[in-house]
């Protein structure tokens, strides 16, 4: 039945090709018009405008002057921009591997549970922070991470004297990373769970018959089968972490000093606190270039160790 349908359509279309096509084009134009207008006005044209603005010294009010690539040259020598970049990279290195490992581990554990409703319970609980307002939970973690907060109380039970997390330049980025892992692991977990559920059951049964130990099964069956998802979660996490904004704004406002000012926060402050729209646009493009370059590097590297047979 399903195979026959396209054939019938083909002959039907041939018979009255031209009126059908015109109807199709007209219909499509009407259907995509509202969405496409919005996308053009508030995404595509702004992208072009942003490139233009980045070549000016515009403050947003006065008349802009064309300055060529000056803003880009300034950015490369701006110590605040380079320090913002290094804070961002440190944050990425702290948050992404931790987040990916934790969410993969939890997903594998959940997947190994035999009881279906327990799996639902844990998946629901771990995703919970994702449905809250970021500012609200960041305010909550500000309280938890206070020198005399819950985190340091629990560390104290373990015999560790906890630092002043958000007040110390050395500990503020790890603290933000802890918060982000707590808040964001749910996303990775549900992606890993979907991927784990799609691994053919026969593979597990075969390895069990061969007497494989659980770790061997994980290493030689599960891991290769879900590697595309691991790659995907890593890319998504890196992209998200490179743009970290809300967490640092609320938890530490970029401080103490500039020690947790990330690229996104620096761009925001340059544009909307200091009103240097031209310079901020150039910074935004430099970030966008880094994001795109990273995507491409990871895209090329994935072929070496990613299995796409089953996806």
């Amino acid at each position: 039945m399903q195979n026959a349908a396209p054939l019938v359509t083909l002959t039907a279309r041939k018979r009255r090709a031209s009126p059908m096509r015109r109807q199709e084009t007209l219909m499509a134009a009407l259907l995509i018009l509202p969405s496409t207008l919005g996308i053009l006005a508030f995404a595509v044209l702004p992208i072009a405008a942003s490139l233009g603005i980045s070549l000016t010294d515009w403050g947003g009010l006065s008349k802009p002057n064309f300055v060529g690539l000056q803003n880009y040259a300034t950015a490369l020598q701006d110590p605040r921009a380079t320090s913002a970049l290094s804070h961002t990279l440190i944050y990425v290195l702290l948050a992404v591997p931790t987040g990916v490992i934790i969410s993969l581990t939890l997903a594998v554990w959940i997947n190994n549970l035999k009881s279906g409703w327990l799996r639902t319970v844990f998946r629901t609980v771990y995703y919970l922070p994702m449905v809250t307002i970021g500012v609200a939970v960041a305010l909550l973690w500000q309280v938890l991470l206070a020198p005399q907060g819950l985190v340091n109380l629990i560390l104290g039970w373990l015999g560790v004297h906890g630092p002043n997390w958000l007040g110390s330049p050395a500990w503020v980025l790890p603290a933000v990373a802890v918060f982000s892992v707590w808040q964001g692991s749910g996303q990775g977990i549900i992606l890993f769970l979907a991927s784990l559920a799609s691994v053919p059951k026969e593979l597990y049964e075969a390895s069990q018959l061969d007497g494989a130990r659980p770790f061997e099964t994980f290493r030689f069956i599960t891991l290769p089968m879900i590697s595309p998802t691991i790659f995907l979660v890593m890319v998504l996490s890196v992209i998200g972490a490179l743009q970290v904004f809300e967490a640092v704004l609320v938890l530490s406002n970029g401080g103490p000093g500039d020690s947790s000012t990330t690229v996104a926060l620096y761009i925001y402050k340059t544009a909307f606190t200091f009103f240097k729209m031209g310079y901020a646009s150039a910074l935004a493009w430099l970030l966008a270039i880094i994001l795109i370059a990273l995507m491409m590097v990871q895209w090329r590297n994935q072929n070496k160790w990613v299995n796409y047979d089953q996806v």
Partner: protein
Amino acid sequence: MTRSEPAPEVLTRRDVSLRAKSQGSQAALLGLLTLGAVVILLPFAWMILTAFKTPAEAYTWPPVWLPAKWSVANFTQLFNTIPFARMFFNSVWTSVLIASLNILSAAPAAYAFARLRFPGQGLWFGSHLLSLMIPWQVTIIPVFLLIRYLGWYDSFTALIVPSIASGFTVFLLFQFFRSLPRSLEESVLIDGGSWFTALRHVALPAAKGAIAAAWLFSFLGNWQSFIWPLIVLQSSEKMLLPVGLLSLQNQYSVNIPVLMAGATLSTLPTVIAYMFVQRYLTDAAITSGLKG
């Protein structure tokens, strides 16, 4: 999209010692996962407990777990300090409206991209994908300048109009329509029906679940949206919850228990609603993640 169905019990016919071992590992898994769940839930418990404490109780060391007297004083002070109810209401109606507009603009477009053939198709669909991939830092400045030029600054128009079209929602529904079997619609076309009839009577009814999921996802995104409202909405009677909570932090008279009262009231509604719709929401989240 894959759902995790209960795995068939593999070990039923194995011997007793293996079974005991497997029960032991199930118990270990349960213990580890419960520990993880405590890490997720304890902060929420702490937030709610703190919302009922007196400032003195909130600042003592070592901390006290339970308030000596459960009082709603912090909630009263919250409502006296910021127009919390107004902010909550603003967040609700704007999120509902924007999510609905997203669906109204995205569902037809997604259908056209998935099913019809027309000139410029790749270009128009490509611009939707472009809007998904470009980081917000690039577009936010020109859009802000445009909004100010149009005289929309500090109005709900500034919040709503740029958010009507959503490349994300289009992509989500595109994935769905593409996975729908063509045969039903084609029978409508062969019977002389128009594409519109096929969309209205076949594709849309079939897409109810996907549309509900996309709506929920869009609602949640707008409910959580922070930076755009922070930039374009200024006056306190137009503030949405996230920015309102941040402004609460900057009020000198506000103490930790009042902050936690605000955090509690703004967190609980979506958390409770999520318990009922979690499958829809995570399905949408999986599709969005797997767009790759």
